[in-house]
Every structure is written in C-alpha cells, then in structure tokens.
C-alpha cells in the first residue's frame, strides 16, 4: 500500500511540474506537439528512475554516515572512528549533478546506437534532461524521504517508485499540456499572448486544477 501511495503522491498530489514547479523548461519547451511530448516524457521516466537508483546507491554507501558507509568500513572501523563522522551529506547536490549528467550521456549514446529514430526525435531535449531540475529534485527528495529507512530493499524500492512516479507524473502533465497547446494554436488569441505567455496561463490553470489532489491520502 505504501508503494501505491508514494506513486500517487509523487505523480499527482505533489506533481513535479504543477505543485513543485520543477522541470518547467522542458514543460514549456517540448509541449508543442503530442508526439514530442510522449518521447520526452518517456526519456524523463527512464532517466528519473535510473537516476533515483544510482543516486540511492551513491548516497547510501558514500555520502550517508553510518555503519554501511564504505569509508567507515575501510578507514573508520579499524581506527575506531565513530560512523557518524563519515557523514558527507553536504556533497549531495554536486555529486548528484555529476551522476545525473553521466547517466544522461550514457543514455544518449545508447539511444544513438540502439534507437536512432528516437534519438533524432528527442534531439536537443535529451541532453537538456541533464539540467532538468526535476531529475535532481527527485534524487534529493529520495535522499530526504527514504534514507533513514534501515531496510535496504525497502529504501531502495521506495526511491525507485518515487523516481518512476515522478517521471510518470511529469509525462502525464506534459502530454495534457501538449494536447491543450495543440488546440490553443487554432484559437484567436491576442497577439501579445500568443505562444509562451498563453502556455504559462494554461499551466497556471492546470496547476489550480491539480490543487484538487492536495490533501488526498492524509489520515
């Protein structure tokens, strides 16, 4: 049940775009066509899930203080230094950026080899995921939410679900938005509002609608 709740929470209630306001650049940039939105969404789901897992490993075994820290195992235990002093959480942001950037690069190379049409369709947006703050956001969120869970498998699975759910929520909103924008194109909008401005207004209205999810699942 926990996992379902985490999924729904991150996908809808705390949606990355509409309630956390993360990942707005691809949200505005790639929401012009539905086909592009789906491609981008799938790429984000993939990268977010992968990033959640990889950053979980890095965070748990390198950055988080405690018995499981690799540095404690190598240096600390023999010299009798307390496990708590091996806490490098302050390196979280920079290390996660490094991990995500590398991951996206590898995904890009892989796609170029394995699925050239998808690679072409994503074009410039795949490298842009590198700097998509939603991906960094989900990693930091995982570190905050699930790192204190002692059970390794539970912590890992919850992080993965949160990453996957975040990606799904991102994709759903991106797809909805692209549908809206495709229709908006045909309407006589005042010249000053055409393009990005009307997209932001639509996004704001969507965010208001998503506020309806707020409070769901609280006891």
């Amino acid at each position: 049940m926990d996992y379902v709740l985490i999924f729904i929470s991150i996908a809808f209630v705390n949606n990355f775009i509409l309630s956390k306001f993360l990942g707005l650049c691809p949200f505005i940039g790639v929401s012009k066509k539905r086909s592009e939105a789906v491609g981008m969404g799938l790429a984000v789901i993939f990268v977010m899930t992968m990033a959640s897992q990889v950053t979980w490993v890095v965070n748990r075994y390198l950055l988080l203080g405690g018995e499981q820290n690799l540095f404690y195992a190598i240096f600390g235990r023999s010299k009798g230094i307390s496990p708590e002093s091996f806490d490098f959480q302050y390196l979280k942001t920079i290390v996660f950026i490094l991990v995500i950037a590398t991951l996206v690069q590898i995904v890009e190379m892989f796609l170029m080899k394995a699925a050239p049409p998808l690679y072409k369709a994503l074009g410039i947006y795949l490298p842009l995921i590198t700097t998509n703050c939603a991906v960094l956001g989900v990693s930091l969120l995982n570190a905050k939410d699930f790192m204190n869970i002692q059970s390794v498998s539970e912590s890992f699975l919850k992080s993965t679900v949160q990453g996957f759910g975040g990606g799904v929520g991102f994709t759903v909103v991106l797809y909805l938005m692209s549908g809206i924008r495709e229709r908006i194109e045909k309407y006589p909008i005042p010249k000053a509002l055409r393009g990005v401005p009307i997209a932001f207004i639509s996004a704001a209205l969507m965010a208001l609608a998503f506020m309806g999810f707020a409070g769901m699942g609280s006891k």
Partner: protein
Amino acid sequence: MLVPPIMILGGLGLLFGGGLYFFSRLFHVEQDPRLEEILSALPGANCGACGFPGCSGLASALLEGKAEASACLVGGEEVALRIAKILGVEVKVREKQVAVLRCRGSVVERRFDYTGIKTCMAAHALAGGDLACPWGCLRYGDCVLACPFGAIKMIGGFPWVDEAKCTGCGNCVKACPRGLFILELLQKTVHVLCRSREKAKDVLKVCKVGCIACGKCVEACKFNAIHVNNYIAEIDYEKCTSCGACAKVCPTHAILNFRGERKERGILPSPKRNTKESVLSQTSEGME
C-alpha cells in the same frame, strides 16, 4: 575528515570519465567522417544566422545537401571554400556583410521618464518608446546583448558597430525593435543613417542629424541611386557606387560615407570581384 570528500568527488569523476569512454567505444556509431571535418571548419559560434539549429545542425544539413556551401554568413568566403572542398561542390562566394545602425541621434532627448525594464523591446512597447524621436535608437542596448561576437559596443551611451568584428549574422537586425540595423556589403560604404518618416520640421524639433528629406542627395547622385520616399532618403544599393557625393551635400550629415573609416582600419575589401554576382542583402528587404 578532508580525505573522503576529495576521494568521493575525484573517484566518482574518474569512474564516470572512464565509464563514458568505455560506453562511447561500446556504443560507437559510424558517422560520416566529413561531418567532423565540416564541424571543425565552421566557426562554432552557434549564432543561428544560417537558419539551422547551431553549427552541428548546419553541418548535417550540408551533408544532406539541404544547405548551400556558403550558408554560413559568419564564416564568409574562407569557410565556404573549405566546406566546398570537403563536400566537393562548387561555391558562389558570398561577400562579407556588416550591420549598419541607421541612426545617429545619440543626444535625442527622452519624452518621459521611463522606469521600466531597461531593454529597447520593453521601452518600445510602452507608448511607442520614451525617445522623442519615434524612429531613433532607444539606446538600451538590446543589440549589444544580441551580438554573439561582441561587435557592438556602447560608446558614450550609443551603440557602435565594430566592423572588424561584425560577421553579418543579423542577430542585431532581429533584436532591434525599431529595425534600425541593415545588413549591407562591406564595400557599400555610403549609408543613410536615419529612418525617420517625419516631416523636416518634426525631425529638426528632436534631432539635428536626422534626414529632413530635402532632396539634395537625389540631385547630387549621378547614378540615380538615391530617392526620397516617405520623407526619408533611401539608397538603391544595386545602383550605388559608393562615390559619396550624396554624403558631401547632406546638410544634416544624415548620410555618411564610411570609406575613410573602413580604409583606415584596413577592413575595406579591394574591389576585385564583380559585385552583381554577389548575394544582395536579403534581410534589409524584409525589414522595409
């Protein structure tokens, strides 16, 4: 506790670097070797003047035959020739163009106190701009920011185009809300530096160096290359020989001959080629 953080960052960096190298080998895709060559021949400024998304976009378009070898405005003759050599095609050389700011009104006063965002675009959108002249340069420097080559500078609060650095990419033409920039061949040295469509009285009220449509230049021109339409002198660059006769008679010095300045700086091309073959400015027609 200083060593572990260094090891974490350095180690991860090494690991990822090596990993990327390994994966790039593993997933290596055979690409046309000419793509790399073309990319290294292009200037790499990613200015977008060619109409393709950056230099790599142009490179792949060139390979597919979707672009002319001379498509890169910035690189000019040299780059066009190198690309033509790589692709093995003929090329019509495009002569170097520069951007010219068609306004000299550096001291035109403001109609009101504009306190909004300090960009020309925003100032122009508000009640037609705060400048007393509705046609002149707003002096908030959108062109300076738009220039990817650092060729436009603010000198004494007025934009100045460094023609040695200008590559004719046309980003300033797009950036100026009043369309004051024009791209013209470097060897066309005479320009009307005013865009005002006001009558002489209204021009003189706000600016001492504007075109007052007196028509002296029309009389002075032996080649029928300059005409006054809508209270502004306009040069037909196909006929203009850059003799500078119009600049000499202009009472307000709105017409200026850049020959001396360009010669002095050593950027004036020698008139060896037949100018009729050269590509004429496309953007200037769109602006009118």
